[in-house]
């Protein structure tokens, strides 16, 4: 145990930090899972189920939702929304306003599709988690987002 060795000191500090952090996390009232889980890809979609859902959907599945007039939510900033978005989708500028807008159209048990710019952006997942916290139970994240939708030339609109 050579405490004068600088690298050994680094290991000691890291070891103490890891032990304390994992213990504190384990004992906390809301422990964080050590590895965050990726959302599951939906295989078949059961529109009539009563179970709570939070899944990822593909472009084709998103199209199917669109045909069924299910509400789409755009998680991007207003400027992107104005340039172009999936036809009929709601914008998310103020979360409370969005909640109000959704609830004026449908109940919390009705399905919602959330999307953002492209598969790399995390905003759609963040919004889906926030909606889940707010009590919405059927949430589908369209990972391909505006990038795939616009490339497929599916119905869209813009605000000028």
């Amino acid at each position: 145990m050579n405490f004068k060795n600088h690298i050994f000191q680094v290991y000691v500090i890291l070891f103490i930090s890891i032990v304390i952090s994992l213990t504190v996390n384990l004992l906390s009232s809301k422990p964080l899972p050590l590895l965050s889980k990726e959302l599951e890809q939906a295989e078949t979609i059961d529109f009539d189920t009563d179970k709570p859902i939070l899944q990822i959907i593909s472009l084709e599945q998103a199209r199917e939702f669109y045909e069924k007039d299910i509400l789409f939510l755009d998680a991007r900033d207003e400027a992107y929304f104005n340039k172009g978005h999936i036809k009929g989708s709601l914008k998310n500028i103020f979360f409370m306003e969005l909640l109000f807008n959704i609830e004026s159209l449908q109940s919390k048990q009705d399905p919602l599709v959330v999307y953002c710019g492209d598969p790399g952006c995390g905003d759609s997942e963040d919004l889906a988690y926030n909606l889940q916290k707010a009590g919405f139970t059927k949430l589908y994240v369209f990972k391909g987002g505006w990038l795939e939708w616009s490339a497929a030339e599916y119905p869209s609109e813009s605000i000028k």
Partner: protein
Amino acid sequence: MIKDYFKGPIILMSRLILGAVFIYASLDKILNPGDFAKIVGNYHVLPFGAENLLAIILPWVEFIVGVCLIIGVLIDGATILVILMNIVFIFAITQALARGISVECGCFSVSSEAGSAIGIKTILRDIGYLFLAYVVYYRKDHKIEFFPKSI
């Protein structure tokens, strides 16, 4: 050599500033690891899944490093960690700026207040901390250090 000036109160000041900054930076993250994990995820540097682990451990490393610097224990190890962490922070911020990802800094607070987004200022601040760490690491005297005792 500039290193010849690294003695006396300058060392103690640098240690106290760095220690206070790191402890202050760790507190909000320790209290809200979930929110911090989201911010880490937004930087898009870690493979999916690892951000939780980092969000649990990193704030405590910052806290312990801060305590070590202030109470004068394991100072060399703590300083190396300060340098490593700041290099990683600068890298993460630079790549986010370069890729045009707008992210909350997550440096001192996990809430998204105005002005907490990353920018050139954040990088300059981290470079400032790197300099303070350099001063401490190459210190000439070892006053108010309790463990390990040098000489």
